[in-house]
């Protein structure tokens, strides 16, 4: 269920980029897409009855763990997403400084 929701979230991100002409909203859409992708990545490593991939002295060997690799990947992906978002926002701010609006449609043909 969550996996499907993740895919739809990803698609929503694309949809947001398709409809919105506002820079901030586009960055929001990108973030929605990233959240969707992250959940999807985690979901492909999930196992019913699996436990978090942390070994401890109390747990014996032979337990069922969820796949740790996707989690590691998502850690990386989240931080990368932050980098992109920060940069996007910085650009958005400088767009606002130049055109005095966030809306790409309202900028007119001012080259």
């Amino acid at each position, binding site marked *: 269920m969550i996996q499907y929701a993740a*895919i739809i979230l990803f698609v929503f991100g694309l949809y947001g980029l398709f409809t919105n002409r506002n820079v901030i909203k586009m960055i929001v859409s990108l973030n929605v897409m990233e959240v969707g992708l992250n959940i999807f990545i985690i979901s492909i490593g999930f196992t019913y009855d699996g436990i978090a991939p942390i070994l401890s002295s109390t747990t014996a060997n032979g337990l069922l763990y969820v796949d740790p690799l996707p989690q590691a990947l998502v850690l990386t992906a989240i931080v990368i997403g*932050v980098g992109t978002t920060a940069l996007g926002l910085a650009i958005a701010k400088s767009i606002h400084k130049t055109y005095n609006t966030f809306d790409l449609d309202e900028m007119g043909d001012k080259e």
Partner: protein
Amino acid sequence: MKNLFGLLLSLVLGAFIILALNNTAAFPAFGEVDLADRVSEQYFTDGNVAEVGSANIVTAIVVGYRGFDTLGEVTVLFISALGVAIIFGEKKQERLDLKFKPNFMLRVGSRVLFGMILITSIYIIFHGHLTPGGGFPGGAIIASAVLLLYLTDDRFRSNVKGFKILEGIAGSLFVVIGLLGLVLVTSFLQNFLPAGTVGDLLSAGIIPIIYVLIGLKVGSEISGIVDNFLTEEESA
């Protein structure tokens, strides 16, 4: 109209992706993953666990097996911090004013809180190889502590230059540790310290060291970004 059309089209796309995944035999159904089919199973073998020495397998992967990814990820953050600075320009900047005047109590309170948050973050970073957490959340928490100071004190300006130096040195040390691995053992980022006992605080070889560096770097980078966002060009 365009809105609806786009929504429909993207929902169709979503449906197609879901259908395609369902039609794919090799794609495991949700929750029915068999680790034996994957590389991941090998991360749990005793030999590998002992070699890396980290109880948190995710940490073992992030810093150990796929440490190179993490270096790249730190670089992404670094480059975007750099980029934010370049885009905002390097002219003299002044702080963004706050709408309200913070009183004395708030300021002192936030200082105390700042210390506590910092300690938490240090804990998170140092236990990264044992419990969930590690360099990234830890670093982010450091940054949020700095953010707290920004929000509660309208005259607060962090030492941006200090962040830069910290950032640069932490990053360089990361690479240097990697290169030490290359020189001392055989490959880049290879562990050259004893792995210790799994579950101990002082275990997992270079993993805690690297996580500390990552924490510092992430913290200073995000703080730098926050600082950049909270300042603006001096209005002449």
